[in-house]
């Protein structure tokens, strides 16, 4: 057993346990400060995991690989976990009890995501997904005094459990038809399937497993939980859901498609199904976001639309598409974290998440106004920000696959329509920041007092600011390693 291989996951778990222990000896008023240590610890774990990168790549036998794709996603997960932990710290005043548990659960979820990044067998896939989902059941309902948070927890629990059940049934079907659990073993066995009924079972199994993963990704028709859960969960948890949990689904889908389903990749129906889902997801997310006034709900729908774009990259079933997806996600994390951080700070003061609470933000806190504006613009995909390069890479991957993909022009058309629609609601947020009139039903004009920003949130905002502009102007390093990570993903088959 090569423990070094999973040192990142062990490190994250140990960090979580350490926080729980240290909590016992920490005075109540200083517990929130633990967040700095957790964030620092996570950065340390990340640095350590790079030092051992070359020393061992797992074999199929362990069900876990540490290839460049896994490392890319693990870096991504740790980055978003660090940002989320810092955000949690600035959110701490609203958590009535158990802030340390919140940190610890974030670490445990990170461990699960990190396992997902390297999962190479159906068993580990299921375990990783459950590790993530179960921690999130707790996290979403963490603010027990808020009804909405409880509602979010229950909804996520029921729908999540149902999707897990579907997924585990799918895994059983795959195992039953191919007799293998390891991805490559599944692929080998599926190639040799002569029996039509067995092939059908295998295909059904793959579809059901994918369905469980699409639930994480929030793709139509598995998107119903998103708005309520995003709105109800504590803001840092929402952030982690839309960055970490979503990406865990994506890396698993990538691996499952590339490693376990080569016999299906050539099938037209799989491409058409994915393409249809991509178009439906983009349009559904964009259209539903149009009339939202609750900021977290709005971003929830926008995250559905983004999931659609990720699918657009996946549909191409090409290395180029996968590379674009990886870059898009990295760009996405800065936009989403930046936006949610500002929303978290602004909504604390007014205990409201209505879009009108942003009024006068440009005057009250130029930093927050700038970062929120840039985040939103980046999510909308406008130069010169990171999101634009991501969207550009996705679109060019999609367009270049038109030749092998007859339905693609329609999907691209739907995506373009979705983008134009999305401009409306994204720009509404910008309008509220710069010339919003506040609540139209309120008597008094919106406040113009300076809005203080907690130190931890400030750090997050600055990181996001540099990330958004830096990745927009100099995307090459990330694009390069994303290219490395996905180099032989699909073409190897």
């Amino acid at each position, binding site marked *: 057993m090569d423990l070094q291989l999973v040192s990142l996951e062990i490190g994250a778990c140990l960090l979580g346990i350490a926080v729980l222990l240290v909590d016992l000896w920490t005075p109540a008023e200083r517990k929130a400060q633990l967040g700095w240590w957790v964030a620092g610890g996570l950065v340390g774990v990340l640095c350590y995991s790079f030092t051992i990168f070359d020393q061992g790549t797992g074999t199929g036998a362990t069900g876990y690989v540490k290839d460049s794709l896994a490392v890319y996603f693990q870096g991504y997960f740790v980055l978003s976990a660090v940002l989320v932990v810092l955000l949690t710290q600035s959110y701490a005043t609203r958590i009535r009890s158990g802030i340390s548990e919140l940190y610890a659960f974030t670490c445990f979820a990170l461990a699960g995501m990190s396992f997902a990044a390297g999962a190479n067998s159906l068993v580990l896939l299921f375990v990783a997904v459950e590790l993530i989902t179960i921690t999130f059941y707790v996290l979403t309902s963490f603010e027990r005094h808020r009804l909405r948070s409880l509602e979010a927890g229950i909804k996520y629990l029921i729908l999540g459990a149902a999707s897990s059940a579907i997924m585990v049934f799918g895994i059983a079907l795959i195992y039953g038809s191919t007799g293998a659990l390891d991805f490559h073993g599944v692929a080998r066995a599926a190639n040799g399937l002569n029996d039509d009924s067995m092939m059908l079972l295998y295909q059904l199994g793959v579809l059901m497993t994918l369905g469980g993963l699409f639930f994480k990704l929030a793709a139509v028709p598995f998107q119903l939980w998103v708005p309520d859960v995003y709105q109800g969960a504590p803001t840092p948890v929402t952030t982690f859901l839309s960055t970490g949990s979503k990406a865990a689904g994506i890396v698993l889908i990538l691996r499952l498609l590339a490693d376990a389903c080569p016999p299906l990749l050539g099938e037209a129906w799989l491409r058409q199904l994915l393409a249809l889902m991509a178009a439906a997801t983009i349009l559904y997310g964009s259209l539903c976001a149009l009339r939202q006034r609750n900021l977290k709900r709005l971003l929830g729908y926008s995250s559905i639309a983004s999931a659609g774009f990720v699918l657009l990259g996946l549909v191409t079933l090409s290395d180029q598409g996968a590379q674009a997806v990886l870059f898009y996600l990295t760009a996405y994390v800065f936009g989403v974290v930046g936006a949610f951080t500002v929303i978290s700070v602004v909504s604390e003061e007014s205990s409201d998440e209505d879009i009108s609470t942003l009024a006068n933000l440009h005057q009250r806190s130029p930093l927050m106004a700038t970062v929120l504006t840039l985040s939103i613009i980046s999510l909308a995909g406008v130069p010169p920000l990171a999101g634009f390069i991501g969207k550009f890479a996705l679109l060019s991957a999609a367009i*270049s696959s038109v030749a092998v993909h007859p339905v693609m022009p329609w999907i691209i058309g739907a995506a*373009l329509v979705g983008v134009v629609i999305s401009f*409306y609601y994204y*720009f509404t947020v*910008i309008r509220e920041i710069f010339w919003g009139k506040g609540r139209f039903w309120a008597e008094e004009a919106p406040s113009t007092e300076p809005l203080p920003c907690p130190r931890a949130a400030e750090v997050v905002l600055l990181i996001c600011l540099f990330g958004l502009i830096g990745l927009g102007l100099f995307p090459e390093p990330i694009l*390069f390693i994303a290219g490395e990570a996905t180099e032989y993903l699909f073409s190897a088959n």
Partner: protein
Amino acid sequence: MSPLTYIMGLPLAMALILAVVPSEKRQFFRWGARLATLGSLLLAIYVFSVFDPPITDQPGLLPTQDTEEFALEDKYGYKFTQRVEWIPSLDIHYYVGVDGIGIVMVLMAALVAFAATFCAQEIRTREKEFYILLLLMTGGILGAFMSLDVFLMYFLHELALVPTFIMIGVWGRGQDKDFAAYKITLYLSLGALLTLAGVIMLYLQFGSFSLLSMMDHGTQFAAIEAGTFSVTEQNVIFALLMFGLGILVGLWPFHTWAPLGYSAAPTATAMMHAGVIKKFGLFMLIKVALPLLPQGAQTWLPILALLCLGNILYCGLVAMRQKDLNLLIGNSSVAHMGFVFLGIASVTTIGLTGAVMVMVAHGLLAGLAFGLSGYLYSQARTLDMEKLQGLLASMPFWGTLMIMALMAGCGLPGFANFAGELTVFFGAWKVYPVITTIGIWSALVIGAVYMLRAIRTLLHGMKGEQTPEVEDLKHWQRLPYALLVAVLLLFGFYPKLITDKISKSNATFEQAKKGQAPTEEATE
């Protein structure tokens, strides 16, 4: 480093500097913006003046040392080039350089931008944000006119999108400014997205974003015979670019955002947008779509010629009915775009030269007209022409310039617009005699009707009863307007200054003319 990099970089760098200056230092923002655009203008004049001699005579101005690139730059007449790797993974370079068309557009843009920073003095609140956005917009569009990498071109042009939205929303005027802000943003982003799809498809066809290697690779006819770049594909890409860029320019029937947006925008924004940014779509049509997709052009240009009648005729008629001065100028500016489209649709050397001349002339004119109407608004707080009468008596300098601007708008000889429009008609006559006839007729008659009517109500006669007290432009306030009029007259009386430069882009035109149907070429 190429001087072009500085022309684009100065405004952008100043925007960065202004971002860290505390917002109380209001004078700093004004003068910072003026200084940066003045620097760009002076450099642009310098590049314009030394553009002509062969590049080998000028030590220190040698373009990229890469020999293959140099040969291409020499072949297509590009100078002051600079090429740096930017995003190798996506095969994107920072690649700038100008040919004859590029340099006249850069000069025009720098002139209008410089004037716009002076006309922005009406902004009295939140100057910091305004000037940062204005400089971003300026740097972006200056860069777009000099990009030789099609991705870079698109990227830099898009920098203007968000600033436009915020500027109209925050400093805009009128009841409808929110609606106008959304409308302009949604239209422009739709146009931009269609263009983006077209650009990506071009890249997939040519395997490069570099405009020059695309042009060189453009042995399209051979490719068509070999079946790699089919006419169908060309048609699709050309349609994407034509309608995408057409929306950005205000091609009928996608023009409705333009008058509304300009009338709601603050003065400097309207000047930059109507004068400069709107020209980008035309610029890209001439530089990218025509030479690279001759077969697609052959299919679509007759349709463009028909649609341009919509601009000239329909928008001219709409302009006749306007009571608001800004809406009148806005509609007339959309109508003027029709001439450029006509010139483009003709794909003759004369027509294209004329199109570029109209682009330059109209850029200066739109800047001037919106600047003047913006000044009037800052004085009178209204632009309703029924309330504003007989202004010439109280504002002689302003009134004189306004008359000149409106006269230039209906194509009076002596202004650059006349030279350009006439050239367009010469070029288009051979290809589209009927459309050209209708175009000339409406340009002369309809244009004259609304322009002269505006002069009569606004300027001549007795001061109206409802007309508020207004003050004329004083001292240095006259500078930006005088500058624009002077250049309009200069190019009007001596159009050779710009036609000489434009003719350096002959290689581009020649490649574009492959799209001409052979029969029509025979008649030339």
